[in-house]
């Protein structure tokens, strides 16, 4: 028989039987299963090595380039498991190699290659573009290799080589992956001609061993950590940068043939780079004059004019982001944005800044991070992911965000509060911190006056929004089709309660974003009063539905990130017939752990009862160690809200 046919038959035969793995692999599989009982595939080891070289960018400026080499070895812990390893890239970061190899079974080795235990099964990864949330187009892509493991103990290997055209784009390196890792090493081979800085974040609670050694022409810094679980995705979790250990890398300076070149040694250096890119944008403000004239010609005060310009940008420029290469960093010109009537935050910030300048006001383009980014101002590009305009007016700074529709002049969206604004001022910058406002300034106030009549409650309710709650209302409401708005207002006053029917609905002037939003109407509350014997029992469960999504699931690991600081302020007045009285009132309830506070009380005045509740979320992130306390609070709150009022005969 032909030896090749025989070999093929043997291969087919051997493939059909259960995997034969070495004893050591079998033993390792057992260990890993114990360690990571819920995982199908685990990385036994992962090593990432960064090396550096000198190159130049698109502007012919000298830069440090980075090569990242990653070797990962995987082991299957189930009878069958499909596993994909992903690697991201874009215009500035390329993947030069992404191969996949699989460890041969004992019997396979004899056929294929007796000495090499791994066989390369894919030399080229599949790729796909990533459509990011809210982005029309960007240059982000993902490459992936897929393993179809069949057998416990089967192993696979990937090798990835990535190149960064500029070390500026190597900002953060996380230890955790989308899969569990038994042992991970991150190594930086820092050449003598380069000075780098490695800032460590969230290392507390993890045993990350750091070593440093000097080799010829370079310094090697290694971080090693073991037994890393995979990244946990839980709803409303704080961002990765808040909770997972990582390193922020930067090149402070380097020496090439011509001499010393500054990298990101200081904030000024980062600013210089931002400013350089900003200046690539060739604005022609001739297009602005007729628009500005139209907007402000009939206005008298400076404040009205500023507002009009600010609101014009909010209302007339749609958010459509087109991020491709340097287009992700250089704003669109104002003439293009005006023509398109769309743009991203950079385009809007650029347009708004120039419009205010042309109108005679002192406005400046500004880089800023949003609250997903937990760092203060450090010399790295990872700090800033957003652009706004800063206006200096009457001795004060105003932070104007064109992307935040309906934010009134003088107020700031929650996501930039407390953040460092890097303000363009020619060759120098100015840094200001966006003020943080108290939860009391961002409220939904509900006031209801209800009367009991037989088995029904009816009366009038008013809901008032201010601060960011008002902004959120506008952003949602104004984007509804106009033929749905009335029913949306009705739903608002019915509180998602099927037993409530709202009529005669009125609102404040919803076209005026500077004032509080008020929605009011008459309500009838069916099935709210239970009549048993001579007694009536009435209840209104206004349990804040907004908090239900923050109820911790069983086994939750991460804390919560709230979408903002806010207050719910409820006051419900119930009037009963004069021949009746309130009895069995529940106790008042109070809670305050520094992150969230609550107070609830009942007060009787003749035949009226006033029920008040005040809930404030005072801090953005509830840490994981507060989860039990938080859960208890929510349970207690629900308990407090579960009281019926007894209305007895006198």
């Amino acid at each position, binding site marked *: 028989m032909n030896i090749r046919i025989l070999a093929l038959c043997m291969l087919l035969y051997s493939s059909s039987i259960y995997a034969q793995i070495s004893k050591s692999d079998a033993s390792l599989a057992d260990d890993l299963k114990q360690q990571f009982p819920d995982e199908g595939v685990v990385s036994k080891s992962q090593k990432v090595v960064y090396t550096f070289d000198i190159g130049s960018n698109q502007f012919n400026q000298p830069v440090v380039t980075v090569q990242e080499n990653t070797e990962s070895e995987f082991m299957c812990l189930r009878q069958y498991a499909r596993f*994909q390893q992903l690697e991201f890239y874009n215009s500035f970061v390329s993947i030069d190699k992404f191969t996949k190899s699989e460890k041969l079974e004992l019997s396979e080795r004899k056929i294929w290659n007796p000495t090499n235990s791994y066989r390369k099964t894919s030399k080229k990864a599949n790729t796909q573009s990533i459509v*990011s949330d809210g982005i029309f187009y960007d240059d*982000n892509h993902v490459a992936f290799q897929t393993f179809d493991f069949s057998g416990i103990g089967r192993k696979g290997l990937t090798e990835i080589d990535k190149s960064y055209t500029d070390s500026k784009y190597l900002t953060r390196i996380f230890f955790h992956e989308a899969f569990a890792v038994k042992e991970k090493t991150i190594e930086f081979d820092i050449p003598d001609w380069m000075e780098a800085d490695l800032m460590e974040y969230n290392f507390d609670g993890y045993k990350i061993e750091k070593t440093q050694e000097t080799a010829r022409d370079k310094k090697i810094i290694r971080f090693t950590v073991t037994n890393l679980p995979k990244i946990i995705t839980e709803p409303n979790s704080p961002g990765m940068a808040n909770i997972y250990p990582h390193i922020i890398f930067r090149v402070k300076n380097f020496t090439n043939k011509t001499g010393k070149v500054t990298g990101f040694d200081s904030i000024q250096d980062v600013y210089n780079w931002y400013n350089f890119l900003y200046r690539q944008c060739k604005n022609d403000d001739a297009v602005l004059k007729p628009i500005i004239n139209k907007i402000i010609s009939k206005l008298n005060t400076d404040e009205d004019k500023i507002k009009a310009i600010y609101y014009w940008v909010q209302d007339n420029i*749609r958010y*459509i982001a087109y991020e491709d290469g340097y287009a992700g960093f250089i704003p669109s010109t104002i003439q293009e944005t005006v*023509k398109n*009537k769309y743009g991203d935050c950079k385009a809007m910030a650029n347009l708004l800044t120039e419009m205010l300048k042309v109108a005679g006001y002192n406005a400046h383009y500004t880089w800023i991070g949003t609250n997903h980014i937990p760092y203060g101002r450090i010399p790295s590009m990872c700090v800033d992911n957003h652009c706004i305009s800063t206006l200096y007016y009457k001795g004060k700074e105003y932070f104007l965000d064109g992307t935040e529709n309906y934010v009134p002049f003088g107020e700031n969206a929650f996501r930039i509060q407390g953040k460092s604004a890097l303000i363009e001022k020619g060759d120098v910058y100015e840094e200001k911190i966006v003020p943080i406002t108290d939860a009391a300034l961002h409220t939904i106030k509900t006031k209801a006056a209800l009367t009991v009549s037989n088995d029904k409650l009816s009366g009038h309710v008013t809901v008032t929004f201010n601060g960011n709650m008002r902004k959120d209302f506008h952003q949602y409401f104004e984007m509804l089709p*106009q033929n749905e708005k009335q029913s949306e207002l009705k739903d608002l006053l019915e509180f998602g309660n099927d*037993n409530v029917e709202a009529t005669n609905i009125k609102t404040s002037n919803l076209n005026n974003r500077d004032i509080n939003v008020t929605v009011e109407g008459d309500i009838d509350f069916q099935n709210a009063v239970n009549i048993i014997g001579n007694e009536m*029992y009435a209840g209104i469960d206004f349990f804040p539905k907004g908090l239900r999504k923050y109820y911790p699931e069983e086994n939750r690991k991460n804390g919560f990130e709230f979408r903002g600081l806010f207050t719910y302020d409820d006051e419900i007045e119930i009037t009963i017939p004069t021949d009746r009285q309130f009895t069995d009132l529940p106790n008042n309830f109070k809670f305050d752990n520094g992150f969230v506070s609550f107070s609830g009380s009942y007060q009787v005045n003749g035949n009226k009862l006033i029920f008040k509740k005040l809930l404030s979320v005072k801090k953005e992130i509830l840490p994981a160690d507060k989860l039990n306390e938080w859960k208890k609070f929510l349970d207690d709150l629900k308990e407090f809200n579960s009281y019926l009022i007894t209305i007895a005969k006198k």
Partner: protein
Amino acid sequence: MQKKIFFILLAAALFTGHITRAQEVIDEDVIDNLAEKAEPLWSDNDANIKDNTIPAKWNDESAVILLMKRHLIFDREEKLLSRKKLEITEKRRFKIKLIDANAVKTFSTLFFRYTNKNDGFGVKIYKPEGTAEDVSLAKAINVETNDEIPEFFLGFFDKQHRDKSNYYKVPVAGLQQGDILEFVSVIINNIDVTPFSASIFYGGSSVYNFEDQYEYCNKPYPVQVNKLIIESDKNTYLSCRSLNGAPDFNIKQDKDFDVYTWKDENRDRVKDVNFLNERQVLPMIKFTLTYASNFNPKNLFIGEAGQLKNEFKPEEIVEKARVIFSKTKESSVGYYIAHPLKYWSEYIWKAFKKNDIDELPDADYLRYCYYSLRYMIHNKGTTMNNLEFIFILSGLLDKKKIPYDILITSPNTVSTLKDIISEKELLWLLKANNTYFYYPGPNTQMQFKNYFYAGNQALKIPFLKDQQMALIKIDEAKVDDNYAKEELNVSFDPAVKKYTISKTGAYQGIYNDQIYNTAAWGANAFKLNGYCTSDVAEKLMPDEKTMSKDEDEYNEKKKDYEKKIKENFEKLEQSNFPDTVKLTKGEILQLGNCYKNPELKYRSEFTVNAHMLKAGKKLFINLPALIGNQLQLKTEERTRQYDADVTNPRKLSWRINFTVPAGYEVDGLQNLNFTVNNEIGSFTSTAVLNGNLATIDINKTYKERNIPKEKWDKLVKFVDAAYTFSQKMILLRPK
């Protein structure tokens, strides 16, 4: 610069293996080509194009479609090397006034096709002050998957073959509220209509059936003018209907082409309504196009060349159905190997003869036929469609000379009998011994009538010389065909506010199917097998070897089955409660797949949080909520514009046996007594206390399927009663 990358979710998406293309920016050459091909479309002198006014009644709408015009041209084109292609050109013109911000946002991104050089696309914006601007396509991006493309932008035939065409998306520059947006497009598809194997049957001709097209006149926005023009070259036949008040098609003929036109005007949006059989009530058109050169096959639902075929007489339908039925004998079905349908009749007949089943009375024989076929389909993976099922069944009845009728109707969610336009709308039934046979579900009983044909009109197809065509009415489903009976033994622990529930349920008809499909997965192992385990069916038990193999397989997978059933039961019970259900037990007591024991029965035990309120030391629990969410009709739903279709007459019954917790006495049970009973339906409940056991019996019945709008208030009465009942609280007072 704001980017969020959900790479974990991306990993999950990648696992699906969905076909995608990479995002790429459009090429300059493509832009030029698109413009060039679109150019002639702008010079259309249709009078409706110029009209930009909208009636005042639509000023509060989000947007108004001023013109929606589609023009299809079917033109056979001879190619080289004797290959024939049918060229289909589709021209579109769409014009919309964007009144509010939502409409601007929706139409900020447009989609267009560029699959070949014949495709064209162009966009203009008209400002309120009267100026017109061209929209640049320079920022267009190749769309990764066609799933995201809204219907407005898809070509007629691309709707069926989304993945085959290459689409782009483009942000629309300069768009504002009050603008009018207009786009034109032309796409050309070529279908190969060279006769191959088709010629064996059709004798050198070729036939191509396009997908049936259904279009409702109402759109998400009001429509000023909606136009459809179909030009065909005499080889493409149109069969069409205008239903429920939609305008008719017209035809104009010349030597080479027939031109069919349809126009609808001044059409409002339709508001959402429950219980609506849309195909029966909403104005719509449907049509089907068939290419057939040199031949007019008798089975096709087409008329003569150049004929506007908007009606098929019963005799025509029956004749075509007879040809289709006869053709079916050429089909093959099977699992590993496909065999012709006649083979299966023979094969089963032989098995029957071997087991003396052929000697049984007709009624028993029929049962064997049905359940054997059901077993083959669902336990042995013998794939077949309804018509093939009917065909094999008829062959088996022929063997024993049992009389039967072959009936055709149409699913009532698709069409009425008189408005059938294509073979795809036909639904086949076999009637024998007063039973209607239809393709069985995995647990369906022989006597079950599906809602989509119960009560329909049907045509009996005559096959023998002395038989006559007849129009008959299929029996309506009855209330007793579909029921759910549940008994819940409930205890309540005030300390933890939880119910502990032991539940048994018995289900028939649609409820049997629902529970089976949700919870009984994996139960269909050999011990609860697909063929009836009754003494009649025992004659057809598999041989020992097969049973042994089945048993081995079952034992191997038993743990998986049990785990899966438990998960399924948890999901099933969870669907009734907003809070988390913890299931301790879930088992199927009777699969309900056999004619002698048609009820599916199961038992489950679980705990769930109770909705409990307090008043001082008194406790209130929403015990009635244990019957599950009840329909609540909003104010706007209390009057009807259209007749209602509740799909099935049915009955739901519950008995709640509630043990009053120690240390408490119960009050408020008198509030749980309800009686509403009328010709449309009923809701009754009675609550009785015996010692510390409160028993509540609840019944909800939908007596009729079709409810005229004039009688809607009767449904409202009993539905309201059920909802009010479900909101009641009972009081537990400490002793």
